[in-house]
Structure formats: structure tokens, C-alpha cells
């Protein structure tokens, strides 16, 4: 069994392979693939820690009663649940949040599934090992950055100098011959998930595609003297001065600006005429998830025209850190997530892309089953959504925990559920579907060797 020290060193080593010239020589030691098919992954990050045991609820009598006993006033009325019947687990054995009828429909139609209980783990872990001190646990368990470091980067939060992400590493495995980057961020800037890529990140904004403001292209042309071509040529020279400066921040800025200048011009040419989407996306004032997914759908709709055979899209939905007034936020948030995912899924179906676009939710952690008045605290494992991508729909993957306080699934009596599936396995399964061969899996998901028992969760058909 790997110990934590080895794990940390292994992670640090994987960081060092990203260093300078070393990286370039090592990167050239393997040939990045040029795929022939089209695939897109969309990570919908529920920022702050989604209270996911109120998103997917047990609906058999004993299990529901344990849930209701633990959650007390936060428990859903059993009759209000959107009842589902995961394959092999019995009719109406689970229920979704009452505000998620669209997600229920997709689940029933075999277009969506759930992972039952996934979270950050260094190695397979159980309560007995935690109690006797033999389990190696993620540093700072329960912290936002701990959860997000694993979900976004498959590394411990103490390995923070690397700051590299699964999406970024995944991108490095593929050749992108399109003129726009395959890494796309909506509403999240240069997120950790996308970091460590050798190609730039294309930032899109919910307000519209982000283009360079070039005043010669606007009605304000009369305020410029030099023509746009002369100004751009001068800018490119200035950027090259930065790239060649001895200061590393200057080099970084020069590269970023140079990439951005080229991207902006390309985007103006390529993205100006995106056909409007037919599906109407819902309003989502609580989480903003709808606007981001709509922009993601637009970028996917033109992927073939752009020759973009792989896309990695990161979407951030905000507000999930519900320490207070949980239901006032979470009920509309779940409604927004459900309706927005459905609009996105419908768009993908219309485009004939539903089986080649995998959408999944991720979140810092789930929340305590017990409450602190009208909210819940940071916990650990919990359910997550899978949609599209040709997954096996209508299933619940992994083991759903017993939601009873102090059960073998409960870390400390407050209802902090120990994950039975690791984010590492989750990421590795997706990476394999995306086309990463077994020999390269640990380059993308460095911790996967700790889960040699089951590297693939089997949720793809």
C-alpha cells in the first residue's frame, strides 16, 4: 500500500516533469494523439460544496427513515421526491430533489446516471482504518481547497506549487489542429482544472463571446489614427519583447497577450456567425449555470466546423456553500441545475452530439447530514451527476452509503460520509473514454495507481 509520503513525492515528481526544458524533452518522448472522432467533456463545477444528499435521496422505507432522522428539518418530504428506479436496485428505490423533474426524465430515458458516493481519497479508505490511524487521508479534509484540489487536479492541497489540473493534463494528450484552443472556460478565469496545459485557455463569458475591443472595428473608428493592421503589428512586436525579456512575468505576459491577440482575431472570424440555438435555456439567477451551459453549447455546436476534435469545457456554477438558509438557495439551485442540464442535453440531441459530449457535475464536497440550524457544514463524499457521452443511463454507480449517524459510512458522527469511490477513479474513467490509453493514464490522473483494484468505474457503455 502506498503511504502518504510516497504519494506526495509522486505528486511532486509529476510536477517537476513540467519544469522548463525538461518538460519539453519529456513531452516529446510520447506522441500526443491526433484523434479522428469528436469528443467533448463538460465539467459543471458546483462551487462551494453541493448538499448532494438532498439531491439524490434513498426512497426505500428503512433507508429513507435513516435519512430523515439524520437530516431532520432539512429532509425532503418523501412524497415530494422525484422517484427513480436505478437499474438493478428496485423500483422507486431512490428519489431526486423535488425540483428536479427534468433530471428524473433524463434518468428515466437512459440519458443520465449518478455516481453514488464519490469524493477525494488518497487510497481506498474505511472507517476502521481511519479509527486505528492506518488510513492516509487528504490534508485539510473538509477545506474547500482540499476538495477542489482533488476534483480539479487529483492532487493533495499541500502540493499546491504545481497547481495543475486534470483538464489541462488531459489536453496535453491530444493534438489540436483547430485555430481555437480546446480548453474553454466559462465564468471561471484560468481555473485550476484547466491549468498545466501547453496550449492556451479560451475564456468565454456568459454575457457573450469575449472579443478584443478594437476601436477600429467599432463605430469609434474615427478615434484612431493608425489602421488596425499597423497597430496589431506593433502589438505583436511588443509582445515578442516581453517573450524575450529576462523577467519571467514579462515572458508570461508576452505569451498570454500574443496568444490572446491571435485568438481574438481568429474568434472574430470564426465565431461571428454561430447559428442561434433552438432550445431555450432557463433563467438561473441563483447559480448562473444556465448562461454558462448555453455558451458551452454554442462552442460545441461549431466544433466540427472548427475541426476541434477534442474539447474540455469548464463551467462554474456558484453559491453552493450553504452554511445558512440552505433551502432558500438549494431548492432553486437544484431547479436551475436540472432545467439547465435538460436544455443542454436537448441541444446536444438536436445537434446529434449527445453521445459524444459527456457532462458531469463536481463539487468541493458534499455536506454534513446534520445541520446547524438552517444550514450544513463541509463534509466529504456524495452523489454526482453523469449525463450524455454514451454512458449507461438510468444507473447508480458505486455504493450508496447508509445515511445514519455514526454508521460505518460516517466519518465522525456528524454525517460526514466517507467516499466509497474516489475522484481519481472518476477522472480516470472519463480520461479513458476521452481516448487516453492505459499507458498514459497516470500522466493524466497521477493517483490512479493507488486504486489498481478498480481503475474504471464502468459507467460508459
Amino acid at each position, binding site marked *: 500500500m502506498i503511504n502518504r509520503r510516497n504519494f506526495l513525492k509522486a505528486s511532486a515528481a509529476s510536477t517537476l516533469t513540467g519544469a522548463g526544458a525538461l518538460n519539453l524533452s519529456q513531452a516529446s518522448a510520447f506522441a500526443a494523439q491526433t484523434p479522428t472522432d469528436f469528443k467533448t467533456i463538460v465539467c459543471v463545477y458546483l462551487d462551494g460544496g453541493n448538499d448532494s444528499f438532498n439531491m439524490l435521496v434513498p426512497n426505500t422505507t428503512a433507508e429513507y427513515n435513516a435519512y430523515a432522522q439524520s437530516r431532520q428539518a432539512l429532509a425532503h418530504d418523501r412524497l415530494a421526491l422525484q422517484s427513480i428506479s436505478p437499474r438493478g436496485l428496485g423500483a422507486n428505490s431512490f428519489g431526486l430533489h423535488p425540483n428536479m423533474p427534468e433530471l428524473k426524465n433524463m434518468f428515466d430515458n437512459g440519458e443520465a446516471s449518478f455516481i453514488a458516493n464519490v469524493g477525494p481519497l488518497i487510497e481506498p479508505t474505511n472507517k476502521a482504518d481511519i479509527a486505528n490511524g492506518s488510513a492516509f487521508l487528504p*490534508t485539510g479534509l473538509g477545506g474547500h481547497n482540499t476538495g477542489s484540489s482533488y476534483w480539479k487536479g487529483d492532487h493533495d492541497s499541500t502540493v499546491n506549487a504545481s*497547481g495543475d489540473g486534470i483538464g489541462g493534463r488531459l489536453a496535453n494528450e491530444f493534438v489540436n489542429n483547430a485555430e481555437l484552443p480546446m480548453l474553454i472556460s466559462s465564468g471561471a478565469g*484560468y481555473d485550476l482544472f484547466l491549468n498545466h496545459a501547453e496550449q*492556451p485557455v479560451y475564456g468565454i463569458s456568459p454575457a457573450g463571446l469575449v472579443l478584443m475591443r478594437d476601436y477600429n472595428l467599432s*463605430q469609434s473608428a474615427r478615434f484612431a489614427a493608425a489602421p488596425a493592421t*499597423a497597430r496589431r503589428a506593433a502589438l505583436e512586436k511588443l509582445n515578442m519583447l516581453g517573450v524575450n525579456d529576462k523577467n519571467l512575468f514579462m515572458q508570461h505576459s508576452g505569451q498570454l497577450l500574443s496568444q490572446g491577440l491571435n485568438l481574438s482575431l481568429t474568434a472574430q472570424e470564426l465565431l461571428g456567425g454561430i447559428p442561434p440555438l433552438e432550445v431555450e435555456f432557463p433563467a438561473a439567477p441563483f447559480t448562473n449555470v444556465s448562461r454558462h451551459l448555453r455558451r458551452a453549447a454554442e462552442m460545441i455546436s461549431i466544433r466540427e466546423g472548427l475541426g476541434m476534435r477534442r474539447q474540455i469545457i469548464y463551467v462554474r456554477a456558484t453559491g453552493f456553500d450553504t452554511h445558512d438558509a440552505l433551502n432558500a438557495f438549494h431548492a432553486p439551485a437544484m431547479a436551475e441545475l436540472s432545467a439547465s442540464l435538460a436544455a443542454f442535453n436537448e441541444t446536444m440531441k438536436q445537434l446529434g452530439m449527445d453521445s459524444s459530449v459527456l457532462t458531469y457535475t463536481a463539487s468541493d464536497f458534499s455536506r454534513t447530514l446534520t445541520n*446547524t440550524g438552517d*444550514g450544513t457544514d463541509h463534509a466529504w463524499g456524495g452523489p454526482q451527476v453523469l449525463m450524455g457521452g454514451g454512458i449507461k443511463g438510468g444507473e447508480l454507480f458505486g455504493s450508496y452509503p447508509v445515511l445514519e449517524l455514526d454508521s460505518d459510512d460516517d466519518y465522525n458522527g456528524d454525517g460526514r460520509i466517507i467516499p466509497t469511490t474516489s475522484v481519481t477513479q472518476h477522472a480516470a474513467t472519463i480520461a479513458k473514454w476521452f481516448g487516453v490509453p492505459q499507458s498514459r493514464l497516470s500522466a493524466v490522473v497521477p493517483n490512479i495507481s493507488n486504486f489498481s483494484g478498480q481503475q474504471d468505474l464502468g459507467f460508459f457503455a
Partner: protein
Amino acid sequence: MIIKILKSFFISTTLCVTVIAFAPLTHATDTRAAGLTPIIMLLLDDDNEEIDMASASRFLMQATYGPTLDEITALTNSSYEKWIDNQFSLPATNHIEYGLEIGHFRPGGTIFQGPVPGRTQRYSVWNHIAMNAPDQLRQRMAFALSQIFVVSDRAVSSHSIATGYYDLLVDNAFVSYRELLEKVALNQFMGRFLGMAGNQRANPDLNIIRPDENFAREIMQLFSIGLVELELDGTPKLDANGNQIPTYAQSDVEELAKVFTGWHLEFISDATFDQTNRGLDNRYLGPMRAFANFHDVSSKTLLSVPGFNSVIPPNQTAEQELEQTLDILANHPNTAPFISKQLIQRFVTSNPTPAYVRRISTVFNETDGDLQAVIKAILLDAEARQGHLRNPETFGKIKEPILKLTGFWRGVGLLLNVPLAGPSSIRFEQMEQTPLSAPSVFNFFRPDFSPSGVLSQNGLFSPESQLLTSTSIVTMGSTLTDFSLISNQSQNPNSATFTAIATDHLELLVPDDLVRPEALVEHLNIVLLAGSMTDEMREILLNLHSGSDGYAALNKLNVVNDILYLITLSPDFNVQR
């Protein structure tokens, strides 16, 4: 010719040396180069050597919202230390008072009795103060503190209380860390944001199983000690196996959560304490107050800090427990390096050397966390003043969007129109960063973020890069010129954001033949780039209008626009060194 009195930092203040020096108008020159005797080095290696325009601008880029020609000129006739001391003596510019004074905030509405700003008004007042307030160092310190003690209007949407919180940071920018920590902990906006307001002891009858851990966790992780044990120089301590050492465990969070029980907003009573609607009331900007009936009075065991009692006996009041707890956090060995390093990152450089952090942490500890002494030490430190010469490859930071905006406006000499020009006056949205509006308590960026490319390959942090995709950096840069100048010029002067005289003084620097505007470029080099412009860059700018046959609308104003456009999209403007 300028006569200066040099007063050594190291020698008794009565010992003075008089030096006559020429103040260079443009290029930065380093007089501390080789060839000087050690004793002269000592004399010159303080903050009082003669200051040229470029060095003055460079200092003001670190210490203010952006150098202005007037401030630069004044500083060349003074010293860094005098400038700092003068800043300490200036009265605080209060955002609420300022908002009321210029008519952006309404005093008392029909529902609320307090000042009533909306989002637009709050941002506009912030802009005005960043642009115009004399107490620049205090305001910059408040901005830095707002990125350590983070609250966000995305979670709590009262702009009165948000402004009150910002004023708390302004008013307490130069007190002790311990005093500030207490004021932050008891602030209503913070109480609402991280759930300490209304947090109560476990009460199974009311289905409250245990106290809320949110504030307890974040005050340790983000506001005081951080996740892992640190050396005085800010580097992680390692155990015998080479592992980092966590500062606290989940059980510590749970103990601390019990301490922070029994506090609520000023206008709450025992009868209303338990109401789930924990609204805010604009009338009250004061601290939260304690409610004994809701406080957990059990014994608690806190983190062990030498010299402090880590056990809280039973039956203490909420106030007593708060005092004991904050003393422990403020005096934890991690706090000095954890806070000092982040302040260095906000003002000076993303990757301070461990020696620099150690020097500042030492000041922090020796002054009981006196933030005035700390910020002074940060700005006067040899690494702040000479890091670009000593470590030219690694020194500096990417400018965060807000500081690009204010630096551009102040440097160019734009004057904001006092009347609120409507939502179009607020450019923060395009810059993807607004004061007190981070996505979460983890701020706009993490102190240890390292973007892919040359920075991560060389193991360097660049927190601000977390906001920047290659597309957004270009959008932001071009927004500065397009929105600040072009859109403004195209508007009716009465509704324009900035006064019409904004760029008049810059047009005067353009030669009549409109080509090679050397005076303009040199001026912008000083106010926008702290004199860092290379000859190559200068030539690129000067040559833009040289082959100008067929150029449209070639006039002085448009030459100014073009040059500003190139500068704001240059790497030099995007980096502070």
C-alpha cells in the same frame, strides 16, 4: 537641481549627510552600483537617497492606486520614509461619508434609515476614492486586507453593510493585526457571510445538532494561520518523514465552532435570535453583540500556542472566549509569516525570498502585529526597492485587473465626473474583478496559484494569473483605452464618465507633424510603466505613425489614443516590477 538631506535609516536621526544630486528626468539609474565604499553603501542603502522620476513612480506603483505626475514629482523632493509617514498622518477617507457627500448615497430611505447605496453607487464611490483620495496607502492597505479577510457581495447583497465593512478595513488599516482580527470577526457583514451571526450552541430540541463550523474553519485557514505549519520565513515546516504538518484537525474546527456561538446582529433580540431570516439592517453598521442564552459554555480545548492557555474553562462568556481565542490565533507562530507573505504579494512581488518574508515576519512579531510597522517594512525593504535589480528574472507580479484600471486612470490623469454617470461609468465588469465581490471567501485568486507556462516551469507563484485567460487579458487591456477614452470621447460631455479635459494635457505632448511623439511616450513611460520602457519598445511606439500615408483621422487626440492602446496591451503595462 535638487538639494536633499539624507537621513540614515541605520544611524541616529541626528546624524545628517547632505548630498547634492541631479534628479534624472527619465531613465531609472541605480546609484547603488559597484564602486562605492561600504560606509557610503550603508548611507545610500536606505530609503533616503535621491529619488529619480522612475524610481518614484515605481515606488508609487507599489504603494498607491497608481502613480500620478504630481505625486511622482513630490516624491522626488522627499523620501520614501517621509512619504510613508505622511501617509500615516492623513485622515482616513471614509466611503460612507464620501458617498453621502458627493450624493451617490442617499441618507435614509423610506424603509431604511441608513445610507442607501446600490451596487453601482458603491463601486462608483470606490472608484472616486481610489482615483482622488490623498490617503492612498491606507486605501491600498484596505484593498489588500479585503483580499485576505474576504467578504463578498455575491453572497450578501447589502451595499450599505458592504461599504461599512470596507470602511472598517480603511479605518483599521494601520492598527494591530489582533485588533483588526477582532473587528473583522465581529463585523455584521462578516457575521452574515461566514455564518457567525446567529450561530448557536447545539440544541437538539431545536434540531440544531452542533454549531456552524464555517467561520471557525476560515478564520484559521484564511485569516490567521493557514493549513500547514510554517517557518518564520514562510516556507512549510516538514516532519521527520519530510511531510508537511497540518496546523489543525477537524476536531479543532469543531471546538472553535463552539467558541463562536451566541453572537448576532445588533438589532436582534433573544426572541428573534433563532429566526432563520438573518437579514441585515442598513441602520446598523456596528459590531455584532453577544447573547448569553445562545452561547456554548462547555469547556473547550483550542490550539496549543506557547505562552497562551489553550483550555477554555466552562461557563465563560462569549466575549471572554473570543478574547482568549483571538489571542491564540494572533500569537500562533504561523500568523506572522502567513499574513506577512500575503501582504508582500499584494504590494510588491508574488515570490518574495524567504529572507524578505523572515524580515517582515520579524517586524510583525516584534511589534505585536502592528500593521503600520509591517507595511512600512514591506515597502522600505531592500527587496522591495531593489528586487528588480537583484532578482530581475523572478521579481514582480502580474497586475490584477483593478490595479490596471486605477493605474491607467490615475497615470493618464483622467478626472472622474462627480455626478454618477450611470452604470456605464463602472468598468469593473469588463475587468472581471470588483472590490468586495470575489466568487468566494477564497478571494479572486489563491496566493499559491501558478499558471502553466514559464512561471510554473520555474516554480513561481502568480496569484493574479488565476483571473487571466489569454483572451481576457487582451479584452481587459483594450477595454482600458476603448471604454475609458474612446467611448468617453464619443459621448456628450455632460453625460461622459470623465471630464472633457482628460486628455488635453496629453495632446499637448504630440508634435505638430504628428509623428514620433517623443515627449508623449516619455511621459507615459514614467506614469504608466515606472520608467521601465526599453529602447526597443520606445522605437515601436514612435514608429507607429511614421509611415502615415493614408492614415485615417490623423490628429493629436488620435495619436494619443493609439499610443495608449499599445501601452495598455503591452507586457510592460501588465507587469509590476
